[in-house]
């Protein structure tokens, strides 16, 4: 890989030891990926904030101890602990302390404490065409697909190296020539009433992720204009069941003004037709237990947006949760502050719901052991909870989740899926 004189200065330690270590990792990765050269980035989003044990803390503190500073505007993904609320959950104090130290280390490098997996719904939302280095699978697929910014799938530990040096190997989705669709997924026979439902998007995303794997899918055949939160739920699902980092939705996403535009003049490797039978199978796949028992409803993966808080609030008015079912929303401190100002957190508290900030149930050990069955409207929570938390999971719409929390057992309106 060709290095610029400043790349070489960094690599050889003339900008300090932190920059040297970050550049060494980037150069070794560039060689693995057979990159020709490196390019500048304009922004970064850091998923390395997640505390996965002593190793991730040691990595963060090694960088911060060497004086690492980010050199582009940098947002932070969720951390390993809700620093304001962990004491009201069975989070081990040692974990809380270590996770907090890791969060502090990244903040000390000059990154902004956004603490969210939905940075595209903050002031750090990138623009079309910008070269960025983002971590967090759902954020990556949203930035590339819905906004048209350019990022590779930056894993934990590499995103911060990019932020510290401002450089990345010129590979993958940074390059226009690699952004064409590889697989066409034609959808037919889906009633408009289902296409308009929020719960259609995580299910459709789960299916697309499974079919696409790590390829770039192009979606055709639907006649809705999804909302931003629907695309967010869709993208998060594609990046859970698959490794999708970019999708093109003809007539919806910016690089897919037409099928030809989305394919960038090439033939697709494969064309797959999907219909209701495939979607129903994906819908069933999101539920591991339909026995009816329920311990907790959990919403907010990716983190709940202000709009989502706004949609939830009227459903809760005048109701309260069943005493046996807890009700949790995960979001960031900034989004929760906005929701508070907008008056939409109050109904959640009155309902008996709780909010966990800056982390989520998958990234901090907060769930009491007696929680055995979760219900959620999030494909990402549904996909990962059985393995990470050893729980059963039931997928439902937002309205199903609320109704189930009120009644104390799983209630689902299955008519849309039964068609």
């Amino acid at each position, binding site marked *: 890989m060709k290095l610029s004189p400043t790349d070489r200065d960094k690599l050889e330690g003339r900008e300090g030891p932190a920059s040297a270590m970050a550049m060494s990792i980037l150069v070794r990765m560039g060689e693995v*990926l*057979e990159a020709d050269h490196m390019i500048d980035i304009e922004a970064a989003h850091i998923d390395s904030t997640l505390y*996965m044990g002593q*190793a991730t803390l040691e*990595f963060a503190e090694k960088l911060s101890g060497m004086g690492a500073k980010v050199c582009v505007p940098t947002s932070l993904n969720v951390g390993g602990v809700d620093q304001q609320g962990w004491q009201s959950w069975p989070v081990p104090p040692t974990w809380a302390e270590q996770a907090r130290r890791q969060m502090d280390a990244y903040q000390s490098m000059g990154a902004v404490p956004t603490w969210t997996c939905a940075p595209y719904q903050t002031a750090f939302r990138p623009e079309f065409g910008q070269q960025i280095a983002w971590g967090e699978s759902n954020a990556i697929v949203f930035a590339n697909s819905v906004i048209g910014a350019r990022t590779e799938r*930056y*894993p*934990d530990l590499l995103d911060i190296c990019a932020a510290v040096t401002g450089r990345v190997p010129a590979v993958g989705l940074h390059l226009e020539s690699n952004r064409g669709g590889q697989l066409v997924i034609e959808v037919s026979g889906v009633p408009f009433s289902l296409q308009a439902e929020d719960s259609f998007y995580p299910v459709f995303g789960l299916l697309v992720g499974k079919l696409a794997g790590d390829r770039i899918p192009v979606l055709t055949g639907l006649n809705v204009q999804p909302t931003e939160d629907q695309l967010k739920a869709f993208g998060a699902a594609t990046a859970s069941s698959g490794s999708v980092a970019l999708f093109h939705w003809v007539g919806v996403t910016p690089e897919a003004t037409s099928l030809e535009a989305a394919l960038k003049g090439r033939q697709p490797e494969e064309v797959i037709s999907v219909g209701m039978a495939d979607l129903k199978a994906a819908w069933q796949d999101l539920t591991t237990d339909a026995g009816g028992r329920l311990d907790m409803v959990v919403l907010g993966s990716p983190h709940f947006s202000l709009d989502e808080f706004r949609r939830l609030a009227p459903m809760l008015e005048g109701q309260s949760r069943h005493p046996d079912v807890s009700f949790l929303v995960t979001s960031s401190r900034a989004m929760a502050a906005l929701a508070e100002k907008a008056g939409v957190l109050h109904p959640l508290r009155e309902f008996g719901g709780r909010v966990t900030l800056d982390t989520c149930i998958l990234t901090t050990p907060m769930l009491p052991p007696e929680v055995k069955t979760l219900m959620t409207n999030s494909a990402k929570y549904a996909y*990962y909870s059985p393995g990470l938390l050893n729980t059963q999971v039931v997928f439902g719409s937002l309205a199903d989740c609320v109704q189930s929390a009120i009644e104390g057992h799983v209630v689902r309106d299955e008519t849309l899926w039964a068609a």
Partner: protein
Amino acid sequence: MGRVIQGKVLVAGEAEGESLMTSEPLSFWGGYDQVTGEIIDRRHPLSGQNASGRILGLPGSRGSSTTTAVLLEAVRRGTAPAAILTANTDSFLALASIVADELYQRPVPVVALSAQDFAAVQTGDWITVHADGSIEVGDHP
């Protein structure tokens, strides 16, 4: 000595052990228990198997960008695979190993095989990984 196949070195190193192979990609986050080395993605064909100290063969990683952090912690704890064989260049697995080298001087060898060579390695084969990316495949000694 068994047959020898030549792979592409992603991260160089030497290792020896019994192979554990899958044709299904795996997210280590939610899929690999860094405390024990068990595969815990309940939707994955290797669910319940233990990869600690074995030669883990998988087409590549999938999904979450936290795979790297989980593998790094597994290296620190000594529950990582002894080496990883992939069917494509997998940047996440390579990165975890490169950082394990920078931080602990303990890289996990990662070698990419052609799809055909990858498919010819079976679970239970005794594998020797060499630093030049050549792989000996034989029976359990």
